[in-house]
């Protein structure tokens, strides 16, 4: 989003410092998709309900569609593209693929980022109930969630095993 009234915004996206032009009313999601060409984060409802645009902002899960781009100066953002080297996300990716937890795929980046936030911040090996609560804000209209939750439980257990020597919760 450029044009009249656009302002430069300095952010760090997936570790890379960027200066991007944000038009009036542009959101962080617009900035990432149209400015940085990072199209992994999806636009679903554009009103904070569906979770398809979930990213990490300064380490916390966030709705990219609910942050004004021009209000994000100085913030550090991680999108699904930035999870390649994350061990939690790697385990999650494999478990989701194995479980058939991905169908159309539109919600998947938001779910992967939300779960990575959960693994990093709140619970390395969360139980199914914790995962269901955490994913309450991520809508998937294909899978019925069961495969996603099961994959997330296994991914958490794997990463704890890798970190701490085969502990299970």
């Amino acid at each position, binding site marked *: 989003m450029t044009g009249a009234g656009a302002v430069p915004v300095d952010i760090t996206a997936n570790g890379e410092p960027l200066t991007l032009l944000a038009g*009036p009313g542009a*959101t962080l999601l617009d900035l990432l998709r149209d400015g940085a060409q990072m199209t992994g984060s999806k636009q679903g409802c554009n009103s904070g309900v569906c979770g398809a645009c979930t990213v990490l902002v300064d380490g*916390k*899960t966030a709705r990219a569609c*609910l942050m004004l781009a021009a209000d994000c100066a100085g913030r550090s953002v991680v999108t699904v593209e930035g999870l390649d080297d994350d061990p939690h996300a790697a385990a999650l990716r494999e478990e989701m693929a194995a479980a058939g937890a991905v169908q159309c795929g539109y919600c998947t980046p938001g779910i992967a980022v*939300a779960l990575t*936030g959960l693994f990093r911040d709140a619970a390395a090996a969360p139980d199914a109930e914790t995962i269901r609560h955490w994913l*309450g804000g991520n809508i998937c209209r294909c899978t019925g969630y069961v495969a996603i939750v099961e994959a997330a439980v296994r991914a958490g257990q794997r990463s704890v095993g890798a970190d701490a020597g085969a502990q299970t919760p």
Partner: protein
Amino acid sequence: MQLFHPTTVDEAIGLLACQDEARCLAGGQTLVAMLNLGLLDPPALVSLRKVAGLDRLTRHADGGVTMGATVTQAALAAADLPGALAVLSAAAQQVAHPAIRNFGTVGGALCHADPAADLPPAFVAADARMTAIGPDGERSLSAGDFFVDYLTTALTDGEILTEIRLPPPPTGSVGAYLKFARVDGDYATVSVAVTMTLENGVCRAARIVLGSCAARPLRLDAADAALAGTQLDTEAVARAGALLQEGADPLADMRGSAEYRRRIIPGLVARAVEAARARAEAPA
């Protein structure tokens, strides 16, 4: 639309004063959704993100708490506040979803004054005092007087809610928040915020506040009085529930008809009172 980043409250007030129809931007979790949906198109936004000190939650030695307007809902949810003030953390834990609570602010949710939202009834139940600063100086008003109508507060043009003060919770006080919603994270169909002070099993004072049952959080002196002096027996709790049911004037919307909402009020009031009492009986 211009976006300003003041660093002091005075600077923010100055910016609001010289921009007709300017709005404050706090966490943006409702405001940006409204911009995206075309429901709002203000000429200017005054971001409170860089205003020093507004994101501070302070616990005083006497048990009272002061929180700045931009304390996040996640911070309040994690705060584990004592006694009656537990109603605030309990309500914050039920606001939407984790990603929303990480950036959504207490002050933003209160100023939006959505009667179906979680924080307004909880802050009325906790007897909060709101500090507003505007071009004419500072004033303090009760949470009960702060909420005026649907999406309308007592703030005047150019005023900013800067902080919320919670009185020290009395000894033996407890708080609980119960939300009935269609799905996890939704706005309330009906919610009940309760604070009570108990002494040897007798309720000395109570505040029951309903969400999503009127244009603003609904509290009735008669319903609170119905619990005071009782041992919270079934009849007393039913009387309070019936009074609130009678006083409710809920909207009909996709979350329930007005009749449905009215019908579930007494049962939810009873459950919320029981949840609060159970906290009193739980070992500290």
